[in-house]
């Protein structure tokens, strides 16, 4: 008896007609990338399911632990193989059912028998296995239609395969199947969650962060690195573009009245993002804006900020409540990073009374006195690009 395989059921992509094979290919690549550190792993993607195999138990445990983060997977099940022998099959059936937590559930055995030379017929196998399992777990109730536990048995020439445990996957679409977009990542709570929602819909991310040294410090940058690292754990690597933003920010403060610097600063960010977007073949900008949360996130503000670009600006959190956002942030592990108390590009230079209803004409009027183009291009040219997940070198190895 040996568990060395995981059967993966595809998510929504099962319904996607002609694009199917490219979706499956994408998912296979994402799975491969997610487990690139596991050496003995083999991945076989078939038309309607995928098999992940490894003879190393540790590796398989890793797969089971990390697979629920990969988008495009509806559910998966560890498969246990045993020899073609009725007694061995009984023991295996018991062990497979034992892995399921609560055993006071409805239950059935379903058998496939492609290997016709096997001396026992289907009804006999079903009867033998189910009565053995029921004896071992007396709380199970047999139910043929939609049971909670379905022990699937497949008798093949080389071995008998069994599975019962069904582990939920992350759902969604494989990352990359939906093209690529640029996420504005501040370091706060919202933007990583916005990125997560888009990843779930199969969008690959490029990340852009505005860094204003010395007003924001290395700790703030480290925080963004950690968030980028988290966002790279969902089946696809990400690039982080760090934009040196100090000069632009100071210029804005020189040119426009205090109460609209916030609007104007965001317009500059949008213009910078647009240039990066073109260079990286992204099709949209993603922000973590949520309506009414702060002064810059009123409809009037959004309109004034959005006016600088024709690029679609996706705001997956626009109608989400703060509590929902926090819940998701906790679930995906970005919450603890986001709440570290360091100034970011949005919190410094915040005027005491920013306009909640800035007028577009006024903002444009004040910005009109200088051309920001040069500073914007300079900021884009001088950006630093870092790929995540970062290759982890334990620089302290000799010390520890």
């Amino acid at each position, binding site marked *: 008896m040996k568990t060395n395989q995981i059967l993966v059921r595809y998510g929504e992509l099962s319904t996607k007609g002609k694009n199917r094979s490219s979706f499956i290919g994408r998912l296979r690549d994402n799975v491969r990338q997610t487990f690139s550190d596991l050496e003995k792993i083999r991945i076989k993607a078939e038309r309607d399911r995928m098999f992940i195999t490894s003879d190393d138990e540790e590796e398989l445990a890793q797969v089971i632990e990390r697979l629920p983060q990969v988008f495009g997977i509806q559910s998966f099940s560890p498969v246990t193989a045993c020899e073609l022998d009725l007694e061995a099959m009984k023991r295996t059936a018991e062990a497979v059912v034992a892995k399921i937590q609560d055993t006071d559930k409805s239950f059935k055995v379903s058998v496939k028998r492609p290997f016709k030379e096997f001396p026992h017929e289907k009804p006999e196998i079903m009867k033998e296995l189910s009565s053995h399992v029921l004896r071992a777990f007396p709380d199970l109730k047999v139910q043929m239609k939609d049971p909670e536990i379905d022990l699937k048995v497949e008798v093949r020439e080389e071995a008998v395969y069994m599975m019962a445990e069904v582990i939920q996957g992350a759902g969604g679409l494989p990352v990359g199947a939906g093209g690529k977009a640029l996420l504005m990542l501040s370091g706060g709570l919202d933007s990583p969650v916005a990125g997560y929602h888009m990843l779930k819909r199969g969008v690959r991310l490029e990340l852009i962060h505005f860094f204003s040294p010395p007003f924001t410090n*290395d700790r703030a940058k480290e925080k963004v690195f950690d968030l980028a690292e988290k966002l790279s754990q969902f089946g696809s690597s990400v690039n982080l573009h760090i934009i040196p933003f100090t000069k632009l920010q100071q210029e804005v403060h020189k040119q426009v009245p205090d109460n609209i610097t916030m609007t104007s600063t965001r317009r500059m960010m949008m213009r910078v993002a647009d240039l990066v977007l073109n260079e990286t073949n992204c099709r949209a900008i993603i922000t973590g804006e949520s309506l009414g949360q702060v002064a810059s996130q009123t409809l009037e503000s959004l309109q004034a900020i959005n006016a600088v670009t024709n690029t679609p600006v996706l705001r997956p959190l626009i109608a989400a409540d703060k509590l929902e956002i926090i819940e998701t942030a906790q679930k995906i592990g970005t919450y603890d990073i986001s709440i570290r108390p360091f100034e970011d590009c949005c919190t410094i230079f915040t005027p005491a009374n920013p306009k909640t209803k800035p007028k577009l004409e006024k903002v444009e009027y004040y910005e009109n006195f200088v051309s920001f183009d040069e500073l914007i291009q300079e900021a884009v040219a001088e950006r630093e690009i870092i790929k995540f997940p970062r290759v982890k070198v334990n620089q302290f190895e000799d010390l520890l």
Partner: protein
Amino acid sequence: MNYLDNSATTKPKQEVLEAFIKVNEQFYANPASLHALGNQAEDLLETARKQLKDLLHMDKVIFTSGGTESNNLALMGTAKSYQHRGRHIVTAQTEHPSVLNSLAALEQQGFEVTRLSVNYAGEIDIDELKNSLRSDTILVSLMHVNNEIGTIHPIAEIAGMLKERRIIFHVDAVQSIGKLTLDPTAMPDLLTLSGHKIHGLKGSGLLAYTGVELQAIQYGGGQEDGIRSGTVSVPNAVALSKAVRLAQPNPQHHQWNQDLRQFFSEFKGVKIVSPKGAAPHILAVAVKGIKGEILVSGLQKESVIVSTSSACSSKSKDTSHVSQAIGLPREFKDGVMRISFGAFTEKQDIISLKRAFQRVYRMIKGV
């Protein structure tokens, strides 16, 4: 010198000292500082912490100054945090003074403490433990290995029983870590560790825990999640992490222990105090009618270093509370000496001890 007092403290390993010095030279910044050097020191601190969490199979690690502080924090911090649930705590009579005295202080604050009795072997009765548990019991604190006589408490069994009853379980593992292993699937909720007992450095220890909310007992700048304020010593943390990683059980300890038991059993009036099945690195023996300190100084003249029952209590005149609790006969009570092995103990030390003891015994009995 043949150093056989490793349960009092150990000689630091060279690798640990080197790491300590290197961190002091290169990563001396305050890990809470915002600048790049602080950042680096913090990275190192967190890497050390992660290594410890992985090695110990616990979710959180707080760095402290040693076993005593960790025990204080574990007991006081839990009591403060969970007093709304109840104010009853259970421990054993043979625990370390840092546990017994912390609990005595809590009694002054209105907590109730049950101190379980032990048998001649220093073992508690699990049924007595079960019977002592009440609806307002919030915490049980027991040591893994007794520091004076080496008795082992069945931690995994007790952990399982307490988990079912949702009672927090603290284990002082100062004497056991690196010598005995704990079942990673049945870990206690709080675990105390000290660096200098495992060839690390004095002044370094930790409290590891999983699923417990602690309250601070020391106030300041809010370091260590606010639970243990005070600038964290990165060099100490790194040295501790390294010492824990290097700590390995030595199968020879068992052999030497058996060998010495055989050896001492041949002397008239010598009693082996450590029970059968005790931890292999601690062996307590007593000579009838002879004070422990006379044995210690006699052996020292022969270049063999052992101690009376424990270093903590050896300066006080009273008989050790462990000897009392196990009901050691009066004529042996004052004569306990403790032999304890460490990573640097060699066969030669055992041979020297035997020779020295023969001479000292003959000399004392001849008087």
